[in-house]
Structure formats: C-alpha cells, structure tokens
C-alpha cells in the first residue's frame, strides 16, 4: 500500500482481466476469462482505499474479510489472502467466477460511484487459482472424531459447503447425489467456458481428502427416504441441499415440439453429457447453421445462448419480456453475450411455437411488451401490447424462465413442511426444518438463487448441525418463511 497516495489510488484505472477475443472464443468451450496475472492483481489490489467503513464487506452475503485479503494481495501474499477468504467462503475459485459482484461487494465499493469499483471478484478468483495451481490447498481430517454421522443430500454448493465444515468438525460425512457426477448446477448447468469443471473436481477432491464419502446415483426419496437415512442407515442428522431443479415452461401451444428445450435439458446434454464433443454418446439438437431463440434474462439464458453459438448456430437471440436493464443476469455475462454476437430481442414474449408435420419446431409467434407498474420485486411489470403479434422462423428454442424446487424428495417426507411455492420451510439462521434431525439450505429453501447464498446456507446449517450433534437437543423454530 505504500506505493500510491490516496489521491493516486482514487484516480487509477480498474485493471481489466484478460479474456479470449470474442471472435475466437465463440467457437470453443475453453474458459472465456483468463484471470489476472500476479502483476495485474497487485496493481488492482493497490487501488483499494482501505476504507475504515468496509461497505464492501457489508455487501458480501457471507461477510468475506475483503479489505484484509486485498491488503495481503497488495503485499504479494497470495496464499495468505486465499486463506483469509476461506474463513468465510469455502468455494472462492467458484464464487470469484460466478457471483453477481456488481450487486454485492463491488456494487457497494465507494469507487463504484465513479464506475471503477475494485475488481474484488477477479482478485478472489486470482488468489483461489493461485492456491489451487500451486498445490497450497490444505485438507487434513481432524484426528478427534465426534462419532456422529451426517448425510448430505445433493452435491451442489450448499451440500459441498456443509460437508466441508462438518468434516472439519470431525463428523463422518456422506454426500448422496442423484446424478452420476458431483457438483449440482456447477457441473450440469454452468458451462465449461464460464466455470471449468476441473475447478469443481478440485473442490470435490479436497473433500475426499477430508474424509467425506460420496455416493453417486443415489436418488434420495426413491432409494432411501429421509426416515431410512435417520433410521436403518444410521445417520444422526441429514442436510437437504437438493436445489431447485424443476424447469418451468411458458405453458403455450407448441412447447412440446422437437427443438424446444428447457435450459436444464439443453445445458445438461451439453455440459454434463458432453454433447459438444464430436464423439459424444449423447445427442443434442444439431444447431449448426440454424436459428436459435433463448427465452429469459438470467444467467441461465446467457449460458444457453452462448452455448448455442459455440455449437455453431448461425443466429442466436435472447428473447426477454422486460428490457435489458431488468435482466437478472450478471453484467459480465450480458456484456460477453453481446460481444460474442448474441442478439437481444427485448420487450418480447413468445405466445406460440409452430412446427412441421414431423413435429419439428419451425416458427414462433411473438408479442411485443411494454413496461407497466412495478411488481413485488420492484421491477416494472411487462404488459402485452394488444395486436402486436408477429411470426418469425426459428429452429431451436431454449426456455430459461426459471426453475422450481423439485418435489421428488419433499413428496416422500410428509413431515417436512413446504411453502406454497414448493420450497422447504427452514430457519434461515440454523437451517432447521420441521422434521427433527433434518436441516436444509440453498435453492431448495430460497427457490432459484445464487451459489454464494447456497454456500452460506450450507455453512450456517453445518454450524447448527454441529450444535445439535454435540448437544443433542432439537429446537425447531422455523422462521415460517412467508409464502
């Protein structure tokens, strides 16, 4: 911090992270962002004003000690910086890549007012990568064992974070995952070009070193119910982190035509099943030279549209019923999508899909929207403009309008209370559900949210599970989440 005066720091430019050029990257699945070099990271860290009122930390959902880690980066102690972050965030290499920083730490940064917030996400990513690539990640199973066993259902960020803390506290942890691969949305949803799977695998490997056992192909509710886990399987507590994996459809005519996908299906085929590789065993609709429309405005829509481009689509448009301003996606993804050539068709909504005799999608009927009054989320509600319908040709459509909680597990546990939205009722601080010994967190409780919130919920639940296992008292006072 000695090099620059406060005044100099206030005027220095924000360092930009190197990335693959748009023309190149739109034809490959390698990571778009290349990450800071050590030099860039130090320069960027030296820009930090080290405010005494740390508004950035207030902006972080899990309270990462941002100024403390940035100070260490500025001094070149990258490993030390990584360890500081890990006190509060167990998945920094992932969160550095996928957090909506502009709404959190970077949005709160005082330099944001000048449009030059500290690149906290890029720094977080840099130190976590530094730690991983230099073999500095540590994981020692504690020698003192608690003698208690915990089952974690779901291997997304909520489950992985919960497993990490419980394993460090000396409990025997087993993670049950329905799919054949671990990581939840990080693996089947978010594409390789935004989050390399190698990073998720490194996190899983860390957990294995901590002594966590993983059971894939285990669909809890079908093979074992929660009662089985707590009964004959001998677990003392269960954490449910099954995410919000049920795709919503617009409920319009023609949505079952071939070529109309949920984003979950399209992304699962490409990411989890590797359909982007020429020798893949799993097919995906062949979009080479074709027209694609993606419906929605979140990260999922950005991921689906950019995936379609990389599969060789001729034209890809994001069709969204509000304006770009209201899009919930991360800014960076919206910018990247623009640069790569995704078209943005705003204030537009589908009303019907049309197909040929073989059942393949050929056209869509769209409708223009305008923004009316604000709704509960504070965003202006889109209203259809009467008589504005028109038809456009399209070969593949991806519906990315959100996911609901998957009812598969909750349905098999009658004493697990749900809200009318299908989410589980669980205390926000402790993760305790209405069923004794069962905790929950992540998207299954909040509905589709973010990686950092899921991770934070997993960690709070781990602390509360530890309490419960050591004290043995079940005090359930679910907050009665408003429905």
């Amino acid at each position: 911090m000695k090099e620059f005066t406060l005044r100099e720091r206030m005027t220095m430019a924000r360092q930009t992270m190197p990335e693959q050029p748009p023309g190149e990257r739109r034809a490959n699945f390698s990571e778009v962002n290349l990450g800071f070099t050590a030099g860039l990271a130090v320069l960027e860290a030296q820009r930090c004003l080290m405010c005494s009122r740390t508004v950035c930390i207030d902006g972080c959902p899990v309270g990462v000690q941002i100024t403390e880690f940035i100070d260490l980066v500025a001094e070149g102690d990258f490993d030390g910086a990584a360890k500081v972050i890990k006190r509060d965030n167990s998945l920094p290499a992932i969160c550095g890549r996928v957090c909506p920083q502009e709404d959190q730490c970077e949005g709160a940064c005082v330099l944001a007012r000048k449009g030059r917030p500290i690149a906290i996400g890029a720094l977080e990513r840099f130190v976590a990568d530094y730690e991983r690539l230099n073999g500095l990640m540590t994981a020692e199973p504690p020698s003192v064992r608690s003698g208690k066993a915990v089952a974690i259902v779901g291997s997304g960020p909520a489950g992985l974070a919960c497993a990490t803390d419980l394993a460090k506290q000396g409990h025997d942890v087993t993670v049950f995952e329905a799919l054949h691969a671990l990581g939840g949305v990080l693996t089947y949803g978010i594409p390789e070009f935004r989050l390399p799977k190698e990073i998720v695998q490194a996190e899983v490997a860390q957990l294995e070193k901590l002594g966590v056992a993983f059971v894939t192909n285990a669909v809890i509710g079908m093979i074992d119910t929660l009662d089985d886990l707590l009964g004959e399987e001998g677990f003392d507590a269960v954490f449910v982190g099954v995410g919000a994996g049920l795709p919503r459809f617009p409920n319009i005519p023609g949505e079952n035509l071939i070529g109309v996908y949920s984003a979950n299906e399209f992304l699962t085929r490409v990411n989890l099943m590797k359909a982007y590789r020429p020798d893949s065993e799993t097919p995906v609709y062949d979009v080479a030279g074709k027209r694609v429309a993606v419906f929605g405005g979140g990260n999922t829509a950005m991921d689906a549209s950019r995936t379609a481009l990389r599969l060789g689509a001729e034209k890809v448009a994001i069709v969204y019923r509000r304006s770009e301003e209201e899009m919930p996606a991360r800014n960076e993804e919206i910018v990247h999508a623009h640069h790569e050539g995704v078209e943005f068709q705003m204030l537009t909504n589908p009303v019907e899909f049309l197909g040929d005799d073989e059942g393949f999608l050929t056209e869509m009927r769209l409708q223009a929207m305008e923004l009316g009054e604000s709704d509960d989320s504070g965003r202006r509600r889109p209203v259809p403009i009467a008589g504005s319908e028109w038809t456009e040709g399209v070969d593949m459509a991806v519906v990315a309008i959100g996911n609901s909680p998957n009812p598969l597990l909750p349905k098999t546990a009658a004493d697990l209370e749900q809200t009318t939205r299908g989410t589980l009722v669980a205390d926000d601080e402790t993760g305790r559900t209405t069923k004794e010994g069962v905790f929950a967190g992540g998207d299954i409780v909040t509905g589709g949210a973010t990686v950092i919130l899921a991770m934070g919920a997993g960690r709070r639940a781990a602390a509360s599970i530890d309490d419960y296992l050591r004290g043995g008292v079940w005090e359930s006072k679910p907050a009665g989440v408003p429905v």
Partner: protein
Amino acid sequence: MCIFEILEARDLAPDVRYLRIKAPKIARRRKAGQFVIVRATPDGERIPLTIADSNAEDGWIALIVQGVGKTTKIVNLLEAGDAIRDVAGPLGMPSRIERFGTAVSIGGGVGTAIAYPTAVALKEAGSYVISIIGGRNSSYVLLEEEMRAVCDEVYPTTDDGSYGYHGFVTDKLTDLISERRHLDFVLAIGPIPMMKAVAEVTHPHGIETVVSLNPIMVDGTGMCGGCRVVVGEETKFACVDGPEFDAHQVDFDLLARRNRAYADFERRRDDEMDPECVIGRSHTAPGATS
C-alpha cells in the same frame, strides 16, 4: 462407489439380452413398474431400463435389453463378471396394483419383460390374470414360461403365425372381448403403435387401460423435462409422473414424433458401428468391465 456387477447374462431372443445385476439396495426398494437409469461407459449416455425382476434377499435386479441404439448394443455385449458403471434407481411411480376381477397383461416384444413384474403383482393382489405375449415371430415371444407360472391364461401371438395365435395382440384382445369375457383392466406395454391400437380397442368398451411410456430421458429425476408427454391435454414428465399413464388420455402421436428427435444422430452413429469397432470399444472402455 458402488459396483454393479453382472451376475448372469444370456440371450432371450435375437438382440435381446437378460441381465441379472448385483444391486442390493435397488432390489430391496423397487416396486413393479419402476425403472433404472443406466450408463455403461465413462462418457456414455444415460438410458432408462425397466426393472424386469428382482430378488431382495439375494440382492439382484434383472434388466431385459433390446439392442436398438449404440448404448443398448454395448450393454448387450457385457457378460457375467463384467460391471455396469452407473445404475440409478428405482425411478418412476410404481404400477397401480389392485385386485381387479380380470386383468389382461399385454406385452409386445421386450414389452413383455416390462409387463411381467406387474402381471406378477396383479396376480399376488388376487386378480385373475390373462397374459397376451406378442412377437413379430416365434423368437420374439418372450418369458412365456415365466408368465405361465403366474398367470391364469397365457396366449402367445405372432404377426407371422410362426407360433401361437396368428395375428396381432389386439386381434387376440378383440376375440376375448367378443367372447363376452368381462375384462376389468388392461395393461399394455410394447411399441407405440401397439399401445395406441390397444387403447383404441378398449376405449369403446370402457375398459380401464394403462400403458407404460418410453420417451427419451436424460436424468430420470424430473430435472430436464426431456421426457415430456401429453396426457389428457396436460404435459407430464414421464420419469416422475409415470411411466404408466391412462392409455385413453395419452397423445401417442406426439410421443412417437418426439422419440424420433435424434433419428439422424442415431443413424450416423449406427453407421460408425460396424461390429468390429463395437467390440473394440466395449473392451477398452474402463468401467465397463470389472
């Protein structure tokens, strides 16, 4: 990680294999009508296969596999002692089992294998069970002996008359109806045109009819919606809401079209699959052998 060892593998018909797989947990939990998702190789596809039989005490499940696509053909090259990489299940809703006066179980080709556990369960529930086993020719009449051991009447039928009743399963069913037999329930499992034809025969007589649908699936847990079928104007996910549905409500034409979604891909893949390269693949695939 679990290892799903193959305990027994034998041919039932040309291209149709019976596989007995060690899967103690699934064997204990599964009910008639449920299925598993199988992945045979490290980068293999996920395919649904109905559980044809199981034994909870000995800890095995049986699958009957028709080699139609690349994955099923690879699975059918496996022998006792080999292992299957991933088997997830049981999945789907169990069959509705009740004591019906007279129930008819109709199976076409490998569909008989899928109908078999439900026929057993219907019998155990106290129904009088008639089994119609349809095959293109005599070699595709499956599980006749097994069906005879549990059902009250068994009628093999062949399209070419090479064995049993000469005609389609629907012809035999029509005969039963015109003999004024009172039928309370029909379960039909087989190719889509067969299930559709059975539904058309039973509909005017108001006979409750259930079919088991086989849409393309990926996860089998309700996560992707790839298995969408339309039943009574409503979209359902076959992997979690089914696979069995009221035959009189199913949009069979839609199902048939959607199942052709990747026909081009399959064709290309089949061309690549001359027998030699298939054998090479299955032997080099780590995880496919134990």
